[in-house]
Every structure is written in C-alpha cells, then in structure tokens.
C-alpha cells in the first residue's frame, strides 16, 4: 500500500504514530500518551474549576493537620455540633438557585442523616470507598477520599464530614472537592447502596414536597 502523499511532508515519527492510529489498529489514548512523539514538550493539563469556598475549607483543614499535629491529642472527641442556623440554612426555601430553573446537572454535594454512631458511619464509608479505589485520609470526623486512578478531570477527590445534630442523630455531608461531577455522582450512587443500613433520611427525603 502506498503511503498517503502528506506523509512525505511530516515528521517521520509522527507518520508512524498516525499509521498506528488510522491504519493498523485503533491505538488507545493511554498508548498515545506514552508515545515519544506525543510526550515531546507535553505538559499534562491542569484542571481549574470554579470552586466555591468549600475547597478552601477542605485545604485549610489539611494544612492545619500538618501545622498542628502536636496539639492533636487535645482534639475533639465528638463530631462538630451543627448549630441551629446551619440546620436552618438547609431549607429548600433558601435555595434561590432554583429560581434559575436550569438543568442543574449533577449535584456537587449531598447530605444524609443517620442514627448510627459517628464512628460506625466512618467505618462504613471507608469500607464502601476502599474497594472503589479510593485512598482515605482521616482527621477527626472529616475525611478526604481520593481516587487513585485519574478520571476525566483528574483524580476524583471527595470530602466527607460528619456533624452532630442531636446526641443520636448525625448529618453526613459528602462533597466533591476536585474532579468530574458525573464521576462524583456515580460515586455517590455506589456509596448510598453500600450505606443503605446507615442512612436514615437522604437529602431527597428531606426535600420532598408534601
């Protein structure tokens, strides 16, 4: 077979790569990324996202844990108590984004309540997340779950935090810290099926229109 004319004008390494792409077999993206021609001057993309302040909170938390490791022994033994206003802010009547009536796509955070003890909630989340390929970082009742494999927008990073609403009632917040929102949505679905016996009310239950 005669090579197409344009090959004569092009870097021979590129032409070999192109052959692989189009003629011989479907080369995969990971394979392309390993090719010498591709790697020349290649800078992997950095994903910037319009994050709300939550990401700063999460990062500050992890900075704290490095700076204040010495005082960790005096850390709280109980999850942070939610104050009345934090609960009140959850009202659907205060979610003015709904005025914009846009297909909001997939949520970036979700909540559920649980009547289980906080430590039990934590171990159940860890048990559910590890087989899904997540590394776990824990500090008190906050956790950061990081997917070891990179997804569509880098490694999915999920932040979870447990709050105490009442002595035997906890609120668990699961928030996307970094990565693709659809992947976060899939993660939440997997998580909720593993946590069926832990969840008391999901956010959907909590916002049901009577």
């Amino acid at each position, binding site marked *: 077979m005669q090579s197409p004319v344009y090959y004569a004008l092009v870097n021979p390494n590129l032409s070999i790569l192109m052959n692989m792409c189009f003629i011989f077999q479907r080369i995969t993206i990971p394979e392309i990324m390993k090719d010498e021609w591709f790697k020349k001057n290649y800078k992997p993309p950095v994903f910037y996202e319009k994050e709300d302040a939550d990401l700063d909170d999460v990062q500050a938390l992890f900075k704290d844990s490095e700076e204040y490791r010495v005082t960790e022994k005096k850390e709280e033994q109980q999850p942070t108590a939610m104050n009345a206003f934090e609960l009140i802010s959850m009202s659907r009547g205060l979610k003015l*984004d709904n005025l914009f009536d*846009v297909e909001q796509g997939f949520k970036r955070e979700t909540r559920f309540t649980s009547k289980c003890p906080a430590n039990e909630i934590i171990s159940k989340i860890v048990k559910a997340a590890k087989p899904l390929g997540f590394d776990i970082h824990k500090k008190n009742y906050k956790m950061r779950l990081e997917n070891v494999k990179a997804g569509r927008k880098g490694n999915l990073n999920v932040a979870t935090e447990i709050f105490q609403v009442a002595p035997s009632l906890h609120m668990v917040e699961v928030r996307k810290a970094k990565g693709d929102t659809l992947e976060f949505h899939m993660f939440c679905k997997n998580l909720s099926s593993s946590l069926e016996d832990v969840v008391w009310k999901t956010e959907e239950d*909590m916002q049901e229109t009577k």
Partner: protein
Amino acid sequence: MGCFSSTQRRQFPGYENPVTLASETAFSVSEVEALFELYKSISGSVIDDGLINKEEFQLALFKNRKKENLFANRIFDLFDVKKKGFIDFGDFVRSLNVFHPNAPLEEKIDYSFKLYDLDGTGFIERHEVKQMLIALLCESEMKLADETVEIILDKTFMEADANQDGKIDRSEWQNFVSKNPSLLKIMTLPYLRDITTTFPSFVFNSEVDEIAT
C-alpha cells in the same frame, strides 16, 4: 422567543431601564437584560401582569404554587422592598444584587440578619430561632424531641449570643458569621456570574447599543 417591541417593553409593569439598574448594581446591562428574561417567565407564570406575586414566587422556587414555606416567605418579603405584595423588576434586580458573588460581604451579613429577624425588632431572638428550627425540622421530616431542640438552641446561643441576653444583635451576628462562614453560603448565587449564558435569548431583544454597555 419573545416578540416584545420596544414600546411594549416600556409599558411592561414594573419594568425599569436596564442602564439605570446596571449603574446601581454589580450587573452589566446585558446581565440585567438577561435577568429580565427570567423575570418575564416568573412574573407571567400564574397571572400575566408583569409582576411576581407570592404564588408565582412559590411556583418558581418549589415548582408548586401552593407550597407554603417560612423561609420563602421571608425572602419574598425582603424582595418586596416597598411591601406592595408583589415584586417588580427593580426589586428583583436590586435584591438579587446582594446574592451576586461580588456583592460586599457586609451587605450579605446585613441581609441574612434581616432574614432571620422575623419580627424586625433588630434582634434575632431565641423564640424566632426556635420557630425557624422547628420549621426546618418539619420540612425535612426530622422528628426531634423538644428537649433536643432546646439543646441545639442552647449550644447556638452560647456561641452566638456573646452578652447572653437571650438575643443576637447585629454585631454579635457579624462575629458569629465570621467564625462560621458557611452560614453565608445561602447569600451567594454563583449562577449570577453566568447569567448571560444561562439566558442567551436576551440578545434578540436587546435594545441597548453594544457601545453603551
């Protein structure tokens, strides 16, 4: 697609010149025009009178015009600046301005204080917080013993009510919110930054010269 001619638009009740509104708010003229598209659809949803009444507001927020909600009522009352019983376009834009990501923090703190000061006494009293908390628990179908509600209130007032007089004043609120910044999350709508991409139909109705923007 709306076919408003320019004279019709000026006769739209509650309509205000986008250039004026843009000069008084963080919105650009195009953004005000985009907000007008949103305003038109909300204000015409039950009664086509160009004004947003309580039912239309409830419909927009809950997709259910009959849904009563303490907090939605508060927001409606605050948007209805002149207490006319409806929200006109100027009210709409000026109120949403406080929720803009670029609006000054001070304004958001002020607004949230007024939001929670149900009877407008200038203080957020314990009985008001109790009322709001109970409303939230009811809305979420979370049943808690009255004792538990009191414990939550105790903890909240211990932190927020610095002089322990049973009510939260404006400066106590300011301190409390600085220590708990997540409480102001409800006061910012990131969508307002991209309003022109959310409601692009405004480009067909724009009356204002590009140069003037």
